[in-house]
C-alpha cells in the first residue's frame, strides 16, 4: 500500500515532505552553530582576557591537554578504568536489583517485612555511605563499584517490583487455570512482560552509576576520570579538569546510546 502511495505522490505531499526536511536541517545547523559560537566566544574571551583562562581554561588548551594525555598514554587508562567501573556498577545493580525484586514478588511476607527498610534506604543519599565502603572494602576500584551499585540498587528493586505488581492479573489467572506453578508464572508472564520495566531501570542506572563512580573516584583518588578531575582541581590545572569533563560527557553519551541499542535488540527477541 505504501508503494502505491509513493508512486502517485501528490504535489502537495511533496511540498510537505520538503518543508519537513528543511525544518530538520534548520534544527541540525543551529545545533552545530550553537556549539561553534560557544567555543569561539570562549576562546576569544580567553585570548583578549575578558575572562581569566587560568580559572576558566580555553578550548585550544583543552585540546592540547587531551593530545598530551593521549601521547603519554594515560588517557585511555583513566577512561578504561572509569568505564569499566560504571559498566560493572550498572549491570550488577540491575541484575541484583531484579533478583531481589523477584524475591519480594515471590514472598509477600519478605516484601512486607522489608518495606520500611527499603523506604529508608531509598531516601538515604547513598553517597554518604562512601567513607564506610572505603573502610570496609578498601581504597580501590571494588569500593567505587560498590558505590555505583548501591546508588542504583534500591531504585531498581522498587521500580522492577512495582513493574511485576502491575502485570495484568487476568494474564496470571489464565496461566493459573492451565495449572501453572509459581515458577512458571514468573518465567512465562512476569519476567517477559517486565522486560520494558527492567530496560528502563537499566537506562536510569547508567546515569546513577556514573554519579556513583565519579563520587567514588573523588573519594578514592587513585585513577579514572573522576580522579583526573579532582586532581586537576587540587593543583589548579583547569585545562585538565575541563578536558576530563568533556571526555566524561562523551563517554556517558556513548554509553547511553549503547544501552538504547541494547534495548532495541532486547525488545525484538524477548
Amino acid at each position, binding site marked *: 500500500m505504501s508503494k502505491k502511495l509513493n508512486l502517485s505522490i501528490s504535489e502537495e505531499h511533496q511540498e510537505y515532505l520538503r518543508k519537513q526536511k528543511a525544518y530538520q536541517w534548520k534544527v541540525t545547523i543551529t545545533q552545530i552553530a550553537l556549539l561553534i559560537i560557544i567555543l569561539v566566544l570562549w576562546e576569544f574571551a580567553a585570548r583578549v582576557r575578558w575572562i581569566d583562562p587560568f580559572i576558566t581554561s580555553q578550548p585550544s588548551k583543552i585540546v592540547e591537554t587531551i593530545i598530551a594525555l593521549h601521547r603519554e598514554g594515560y588517557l585511555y587508562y583513566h577512561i578504561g578504568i572509569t568505564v569499566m567501573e560504571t559498566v560493572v556498577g550498572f549491570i550488577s545493580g540491575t541484575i541484583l536489583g531484579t533478583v531481589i525484586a523477584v524475591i519480594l514478588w515471590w514472598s509477600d511476607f519478605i516484601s512486607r517485612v522489608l518495606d520500611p527498610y527499603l523506604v529508608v534506604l531509598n531516601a538515604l543519599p547513598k553517597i554518604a555511605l562512601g567513607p564506610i565502603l572505603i573502610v570496609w572494602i578498601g581504597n580501590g576500584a571494588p569500593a567505587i563499584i560498590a558505590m555505583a551499585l548501591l546508588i542504583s540498587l534500591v531504585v531498581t528493586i522498587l521500580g522492577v517490583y512495582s513493574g511485576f505488581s502491575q502485570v495484568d492479573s*487476568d*494474564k496470571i*489467572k489464565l496461566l493459573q*487455570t*492451565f495449572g*501453572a506453578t509459581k515458577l512458571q508464572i514468573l518465567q*512465562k508472564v512476569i519476567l*517477559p512482560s517486565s*522486560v520494558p520495566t527492567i530496560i528502563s531501570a537499566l537506562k536510569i542506572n547508567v546515569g546513577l552509576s556514573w554519579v556513583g563512580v565519579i563520587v567514588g573516584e573523588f573519594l578514592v583518588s587513585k585513577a579514572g576520570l573522576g580522579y583526573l578531575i579532582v586532581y586537576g582541581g587540587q593543583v589548579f590545572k583547569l585545562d585538565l579538569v575541563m578536558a576530563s569533563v568533556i571526555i566524561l560527557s562523551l563517554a556517558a553519551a556513548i554509553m547511553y546510546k549503547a544501552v538504547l541499542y541494547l534495548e532495541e535488540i532486547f525488545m525484538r527477541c524477548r
Partner: protein
Amino acid sequence: MVRANLMVEMRNVSMNYHSPEGEIEALKNFSLAIEDGEFISIVGPSGCGKSTLLNLIAGLIVPSSGEILIKNKNVHGPTSMVGYMPQRDQLFEWRNIWKNVILGLEVQNKLNEETKAYAEKLLDDYGLIDFKYSYPYQLSGGMRQRVALIRTLAVNPAILLLDEAFSALDYQTRLLLNDEVKQIITKEKKTAILVTHDIAESISMSDRVIVLTKRPATIKSVHKINLTCEIDTPLKRREAPEYRQYFNTIWKELDVHV
C-alpha cells in the same frame, strides 16, 4: 445419585471473602447441574458473584462450604478439564500466534507431536494458519479472540469458561464472533459456561440462561431456551419469534436501575 452425562455439579456451595473491612458473602447455598455438551449462560447484576462462580469451577479458589464436582470428581485446584477464556484476549504480545496457542501445552508439559498437530489443525480449521508466525498486534480484535479460544481448546478441556469473553469487542465483531465461537464449541463438543451482561447474547448463544440474584448470589430463575428457527446460529436465533419474550422476561427479572 450419579448421572453419567453430568459434567459440572455444584452442591450447596457457599463462598465468603474475608478482608480487614469485613466478610462478604458472594455465593450462598448455590446448587447447579450442567450436562455434558450443554451451553449455559449466567446473567446477573454487576458484582453479584458471577466471576466467583467461574473461579470456583476453574479450581482457582476453594469454596467456604459445599462441593464442586466435575465428571463426578471433586475439584481440588485447577484441572486440565477446564479451559478459561478471559474478557480481553490476554494474548502475550511478545509471543507469536503459534507460541500463544501452545502456551497451555507448555505449562502442562504436554508439548508433543500429537498435541502440536492438534493445535495446528485448530489454527487451520478456524482460518488462522496463515497468521501462525504473526504477532498479536498484527491481528484484528476478532481474530485475536479466536486465537484466545484456540489457545484454550489446544489443551483439550471438556468445559469452557467464557468470562465476558465478548464484551471488549465492538458490536459487529461481537455478533460475528458469537456465531463463530458457538459453531466451534458445538463442533468440538464442549460444555460451555458463559458469564455475560448482555441478555441478547445469553439468549442467542445458550441452551439455558441462569439468572442470579444480587449478592449473595443464588439462582433467581432458569430459562430453558426453545426457539423456532431453521438455522440454529446465534445471529438467526435473534430473529426467532420467542426471542423477544425471553428478553423481556429476563430484563424484568434483572430489575436494572441506573
